[in-house]
């Protein structure tokens, strides 16, 4: 990583990220109430938008994009466990 690159990447444009988050939030509300999509699609799109927003926060505001890869891996590794419990418990719901 050259000095210029690291200088550029360590101070991302926080306002731009904020703008993205704002647009995505508006899009979410719009999809939920105006689009009239079938329910399955609606849920999938809304979840995708939420994950996208969460990822933006984690990567830029929490600087995960600029941390050592080992830390990123440590953070991501337990997430499957969180998803696992949701899915298995869900199988009981049906």
């Amino acid at each position, binding site marked *: 990583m050259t000095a210029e690159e690291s200088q550029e990447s360590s101070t991302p444009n926080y306002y731009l990220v904020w703008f993205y988050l704002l647009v995505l939030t508006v899009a979410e509300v719009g999809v939920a109430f105006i689009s009239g999509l079938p329910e399955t699609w609606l849920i999938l799109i809304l979840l995708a938008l939420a994950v996208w927003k969460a990822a933006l926060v984690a990567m830029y505001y929490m600087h995960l994009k600029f941390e050592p890869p080992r830390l990123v891996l440590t953070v991501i590794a337990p997430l499957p466990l969180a998803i696992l*419990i949701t899915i298995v418990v869900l199988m009981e719901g049906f």
Partner: protein
Amino acid sequence: MTTTATTAERVPNVSVQHWAEPGHEDDRSFWRKYVFSTDHKVIGSQFLFLSLFFLFVGGALAMMMRWQLGFPGEPMPGGGVFGQAKAVQGILLPEFYNSLVTMHGTFMIFFAIMPLLVGVFGNWLIPLHVGAADMAFPRLNMASFWTAVPAGVLMLASFWVTGGAAGAGWTAYPPLSAVPEFSGVSMGQKLWCVSIAVLGFSSLMGAVNYITTIVNMRAPGLGWMRLSLPVWALFITAILILLAIPVLTGAAILLLFDQTIGTAFFLPEAGGQPLLWQHLFWYFGHPEVYILILPAMGIASEVIANGSRKPIFGYRFMVAAIVTIAFLGWIVWGHHMFQSGMNPLLGTSFMFSTMVIAVPSAIKTFNWLGTMWRGDLHFHVPMLNAVAFVAMFIIGGLSGIFMASTPIDIYIHDTYFIVAHLHYVLFGGSLFAIFAGIYFWFPKFFGKMLNPTLGKIHFWTSFVFFNLVFFPMHNIGLKGHMRRIYDPTQYEWLAEIQPMNTFMSVSAFLLGTAQLLFLANIVWSLWKGEDAPPNPWKANTLEWSIPSPAPHGNFEEMPTVYRGPYEYSAPEREEDHWPMGEPGPGEERPPPEEQRRKEAAG
């Protein structure tokens, strides 16, 4: 305009630790030294006394249960002190018996074995074994202990509230635990939830500390593959605690809402799901099982290598087995719920994943045997207990395979067979390893040797009576003896094996009495014991290179590690052990810390 590199340099880095000045005076006041201490060794010792207290409370509850099972309907000696609400003229009432069962399980698992393994050995060993001056967050560490105390007090106090202590089992299945009319306990059940949630915070603080310390504060030269096995086990255990305990905390709070403000998360009449509790509980509960055994495995590995004077057999496999067990531990929780009416497809997949755990467990067992094979065996007291751990763990592990298979589990589910299994793993396994660890490390933290003669008597009586109590439980379980049952003689087919119950009860009383020897040994040795040399067991890890008791601040300067912890009987050395911090021929000692700082500055 900063780069990540400068960020890491400017913010306090891992290498900045406050090493004690050589020969400095310890000027902390009494309170800072022994009560609100941030020293990891003192906190470990505090956890030792707290959890030993709860171990004996839990043991006393077990004695009372055994009285009822062995002599149903007869007044218990001294039973009058509980009053008419709990024991009529000394005869224990069924509701009180339910509380005894529940609180025995709760105390033993959450307040005795878990803090003994994680609180005591985690605090005692981690900074010393990684060569650090203290934990990464000493004040958080102190908070962890002082959060565990109120949790324990709340749990203990619930015996004296109206309705008595919680009576829905340590698993607290709703609706039994959620509706006071069902169990007859209202306040006690709520206190149970609060206490468990508070204890969750304590464990969490400990886990954050352990993980950070092990990852970030290892001494120079101490790579991952040179870590001692107890530290490896505690590291993986801390990860399990970190990710499993919050789920229990969340579930306990939901249950508390059901009990107090009238929600219906787990109550079927309003659409809630009792199975949801079981899933959440066992999602925590199965990793918890490994929280209770992995550190014990680590301690046993350390002691067995030491007592055999041989390098641990298959170090890398041992580490891999710990990691594998922990990982598999996340995907097997459903095997506690085969009989709950869960989705059969899930049941089968849980059965397979459970069977797979036998593989890493067997690897560990064979490696312990391989370590002892042709070793120069020294059966000192820690070694005796560690070997007993291996033997008892094999029995407990084998009976576990029975229960893992769904068809057999239908038959033995909720019988004394499972009581036998879990006590073989938790008492025969974890507790014997805890004894081994306490006998082994006591000298380092208190500066006194535990009396070996008393220790041997304690070991042999415990070992014999333990088996006399718990082995027959397999048999009566297969005969159909239900667990948690108040009076077995009410059934004809159980009445005829009542002599067996009486025999187990008498053995249990002797087992309980034998534990007083352990207590006496600690008290006597603290008072009049033989002074401990720095390295009484001729062991290799870093803590044995400093005086006993270990001084405040641990090492005089940051130690350097040259080899792994199990270099026993190296052929090129006269002595049969080779401390991790001792350079071999040609291994230059690097400049001391001060000089390094000067170099870095210049």
